[in-house]
């Protein structure tokens, strides 16, 4: 244990991978001693009493080996790697001032440092005239408001905190996919919502002009949608944007009104909104002609396509209720009577939220660590209950760890636990591609998927596992390769998250959700023109 010793979660993830390769070492982990990490070390049988007593600002080096000398050797090697001094090479600086001297015309800063330091650093960046993509989370709403107020007064953008994704001037920032350039502008207070919409727009032959992440806090009352409104105004004036898509988890009521009023009064371009999980009432539907409101990311994309290009084809992402029923009938035919529940293991928070919205309609309320309705909050995030959708990117799973889109460990362990539950009918998961993400996210899950299938088989069950690969063939991981890896081991993949979730509802509630119910659901949640 090293007291008061900070290294960021990605450095430690890389170091842990290196440590596992040291001769004589059977398993190893180098982590900040947060409660989450200690729990995971315990599951991996890497937690000692000394590790247990460490505090979150301490660092734990855990090594499993056959002999004391092998352990000592492992620890010495890891310590040597840890204490290697950072090299000051070309393009690498220790202060912002020095970096700016080397790049005086910088126009964007990306900030990913612990939340308590954000206000001071971002204030100085704004004072120097830079737009900021703020990836850091754990930033207070008070700090967020002050930073955004300052940014707005200077005509600059603060995208975030907690902004996972942006695409600016055709370049993917942080966790974003490689999509073609086009005329669809996106504003999203929902990182993986932005990824899903940009990927599906790309799949249907269109492209993205700019896609701006605002961070989830932006649509709360305390912030008032400052960045969202700046972004909409910019896209309205941007000549390469001809349609604007706004994606968010439910905004606070006053912010939703502010956004809709602004869109109605101050924009002229077609606008498609998707306030996932927002209370659905007549006042949500603003204007059926220029401005349209949708309930899922899938529907938002179809609506966008209809407006952007009347000749666009939706075949690449569409599937009729009849087709879906046929696929599901095949997947469900060997299920046992007691297999009744859906379990979702998500790395993308917005996709988890879309799953909750869809399941809420088709199977009723669903438990989650980030539920639609607080009475369905899982008592313990570490244990699923009935139908459960987990957002593994939430704080309880990520404190002091890399996000699960980068580090698959948490999901690998959880999948095995879910497979042991004889009441589980189907497991769904997202596989997020693009810059920032794991270099082979499907491959990283394959062993655990095979183990999960084996656990079910030994218990005389089948366990359908469904996946949605969110990405493009131009992403570094190449979508078609990722799909192939999964399908080879019996995972059924779907072109959109919404279709995968709908299939999981039909599997778990086989015989209960009828074709007529499904047709009505399609019309309201997936494709407003269905059946017309």
């Amino acid at each position: 244990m090293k007291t008061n010793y900070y290294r960021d979660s990605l450095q430690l993830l890389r170091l842990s991978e290196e440590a596992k390769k040291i001769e004589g070492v059977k398993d190893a982990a180098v982590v900040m001693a947060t409660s989450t990490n200690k729990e995971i070390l315990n599951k991996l049988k890497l937690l000692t009493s000394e590790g247990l007593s460490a505090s979150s600002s301490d660092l734990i080096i855990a090594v499993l080996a056959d002999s004391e000398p092998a352990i000592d050797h492992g620890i010495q090697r890891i310590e040597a790697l840890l204490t290697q001094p950072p090299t000051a090479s070309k393009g690498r600086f220790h202060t912002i001032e020095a970096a700016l001297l080397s790049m005086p015309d910088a126009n964007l800063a990306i900030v990913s440092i612990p939340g308590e330091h954000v206000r001071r650093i971002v204030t100085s960046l704004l004072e120097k005239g830079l737009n900021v993509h703020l990836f850091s989370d754990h930033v207070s709403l008070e700090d967020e408001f002050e930073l955004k107020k300052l940014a707005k007064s200077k005509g600059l953008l603060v995208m975030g905190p907690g902004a996972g994704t942006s695409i600016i001037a055709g370049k993917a920032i942080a966790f974003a996919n490689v999509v073609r350039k086009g005329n669809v502008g996106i504003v999203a207070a929902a990182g993986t919502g932005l990824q899903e919409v940009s990927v599906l727009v790309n799949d249907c032959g269109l492209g993205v002009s700019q896609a701006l992440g605002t961070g989830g806090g932006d649509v709360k009352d305390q912030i008032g949608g400052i960045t969202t409104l700046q972004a909409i105004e910019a896209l309205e004036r941007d000549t390469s944007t001809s349609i604007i898509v706004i994606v968010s988890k439910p905004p606070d009521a006053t912010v939703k009104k502010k956004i809709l009023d602004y869109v109605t009064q101050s924009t002229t371009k077609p606008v498609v909104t998707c306030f996932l999980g927002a209370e659905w009432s007549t006042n949500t539907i603003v204007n059926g002609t220029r401005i349209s409101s949708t309930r899922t990311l899938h529907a938002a994309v179809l609506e966008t396509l209809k407006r952007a290009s009347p000749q666009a084809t939706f075949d690449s992402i569409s599937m009729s209720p009849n087709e879906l029923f046929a696929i599901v009938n095949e997947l469900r035919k060997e299920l046992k009577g007691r297999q009744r529940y859906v379990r979702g293991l998500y790395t993308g928070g917005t996709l988890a939220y879309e799953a909750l919205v869809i399941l809420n309609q088709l199977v009723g309320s669903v438990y989650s660590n980030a539920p639609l309705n607080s009475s369905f909050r899982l008592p313990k995030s570490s244990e699923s209950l009935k139908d459960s959708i987990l957002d593994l990117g939430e704080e309880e799973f990520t404190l002091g760890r890399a996000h699960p889109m980068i580090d698959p460990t948490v999901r690998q362990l959880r999948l095995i636990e879910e497979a042991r539950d004889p009441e589980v009918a189907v497991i769904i998961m997202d596989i997020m591609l693009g810059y920032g993400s794991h270099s082979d996210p499907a491959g990283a899950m394959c062993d655990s998927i095979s183990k999960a299938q084996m656990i079910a088989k030994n218990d005389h069950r089948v366990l359908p596992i469904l996946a949605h690969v969110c990405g493009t063939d131009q992403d570094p991981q190449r979508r078609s390769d990722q799909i192939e890896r999964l399908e080879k081991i019996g995972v059924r993949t779907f072109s959109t998250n919404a279709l995968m979730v709908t299939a999981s509802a039909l599997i778990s509630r086989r015989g209960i959700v009828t074709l007529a119910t499904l047709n009505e659901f399609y019309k309201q949640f997936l494709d407003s023109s269905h059946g017309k």
Partner: protein
Amino acid sequence: MVEKILKLFNSDLKVINIGLELFKNDLESQKVSVVQVSWQPNPKLEKEYEDILSKIL
């Protein structure tokens, strides 16, 4: 007042990356100009020393 934002949309990105180096590497592979600030939190100091330092700096 979005002129600076529109300018950002229409310029080559020039990025200062503060924190995770992953983002720097990803931008470089997209041929974006980027410089890295290897950020570390200030060491924890006794309050007395912190006060003296804040006066000096």
